[in-house]
């Protein structure tokens, strides 16, 4: 068979639009998902048993079901239950944020655990109020220790985001699939789509190890 990559030049614009949707969706869900994940991570260490139960149930549910099922549920069932129409993009953001929140809460929980009890003793001895303890002592240390794993979580989300094509969102994967169907050139088109994902994800995975070494040196852990 003969490969002809030149056909792709015609679809440059469409591919770029798809990539833009993928990136926008990923970045928004990273920001919202990390914030949610930190809050849930804290909630899971709470002394209140109800708070612990609810947050654990959420995490276990989202970790224990396929992302694709979660996506379908939020795209098709949530609007029925709420009685409101959600745009494709909003549904995608909700679904992937909930997924990301569950994943990163585990990352934050581990990093919160690694902060020794003597740090809390120091906070008490210095009379730091609870909110200062969380914002100035716990959060920065938890984030620093979590950064390498969080970056991996972000790369995973970026790749998992391709699933939204299954519910009709025009992301990079969706556009690629359409072009490949219309041109009957799946090898060229899907190879290029895979390469685009790889070119973005690979430097990030490499960055993880570099950043990890730096943070470990700084915190001497």
């Amino acid at each position, binding site marked *: 068979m003969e490969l002809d990559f030149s056909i792709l030049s015609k679809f440059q614009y469409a591919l770029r639009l798809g990539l833009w949707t993928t990136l926008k969706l990923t970045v928004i869900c990273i920001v919202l998902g990390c914030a949610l994940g930190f809050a849930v991570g804290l909630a899971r260490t709470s002394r209140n048993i109800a708070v612990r139960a609810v947050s654990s149930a959420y995490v276990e549910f989202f970790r224990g079901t396929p992302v694709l099922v979660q996506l379908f549920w939020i795209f098709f069932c949530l609007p029925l239950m709420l009685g409101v129409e959600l745009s494709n993009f909003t549904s995608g953001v909700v679904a992937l944020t909930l997924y990301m929140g569950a994943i990163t809460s585990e990352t934050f929980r581990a990093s919160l655990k690694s902060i020794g009890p003597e740090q809390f003793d120091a906070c*008490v001895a210095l009379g730091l109020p609870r909110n200062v303890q969380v914002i100035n002592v716990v959060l920065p240390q938890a984030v620093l220790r979590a950064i390498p794993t969080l970056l991996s979580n972000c790369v995973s989300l970026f790749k998992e985001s391709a699933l939204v094509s299954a519910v009709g969102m025009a992301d990079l994967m969706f556009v690629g699939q359409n072009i490949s169907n219309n041109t009957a050139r799946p090898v060229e088109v899907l190879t290029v789509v895979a390469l685009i994902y790889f070119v973005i994800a690979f430097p990030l995975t490499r960055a993880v190890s570099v950043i990890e070494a730096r943070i470990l040196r700084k915190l001497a852990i």
Partner: protein
Amino acid sequence: MAMSFSLPLVKMQALHKSYADGAIQVLKGIDIEMKPGERVVVIGPSGGGKSTLLRVMMGLEKIDSGSVTFDGKPYISSGVKESKTVIDMSVRRSIGMVFQHYTLFPHLNVLQNLTLAPCKVRGEAKAKAQDRAQTLLERFGLGAKAKAYPAQLSGGQKQRVAIARALMLDPKLMLFDEVTSALDPELVGEVEQVILQLAAQNMPMMIVTHDMWFARNIASRVIFCAGGVVVEDGPPEQVLGSPKEERTKEFIDRVFHINQ
């Protein structure tokens, strides 16, 4: 005048403390009165409850029963309901503590470690807190380390920073729990010098240490604590030199034997 002179700075009454829901009785009725300007060194065998005593004083542990007053004000008491400990937060703020394992904040540099509490707790202006911090660091021979992170400091330097950090809040009482135990022998001196410096300025303190040379030099009073009670209490010459109690004598002999 005579009245305020006799007023104790700290008054512990019948302090009881246990861990694991009463399974491990650690403090079994501690009564200690400490006058202003006194430097009390607490010695005793491992597991005798010395750290627990200081942690209770810092408000880090609940108590089972008993009470502590500070400067004439109620500070710690066991509440009406069992397992409730009432701690007066404003009193707690006038007590500082340094721990065995330098508990500096690893993500903040030395200057930020020192200014965090004054700025956040007392609302002090950042520039003013930094000025005070720099002065304090210079006094402790750490002037050049203001921008360093804890991981870049030696154990002795870290411990001096920890002392400076506690002093930033102008405590009326300092608690030191084996602050030189984790240090290499050659770094012990620099930390003890800083504490001796504070002693020369009449800072009231309670010190737990296994270093008998330091105990002799810093103490205005020595308390031997074992099995959760005060066994002997007196001037350093007495308790360290010619103890009255048999248990104290045994302990002192053993420790001096190890130290030599």
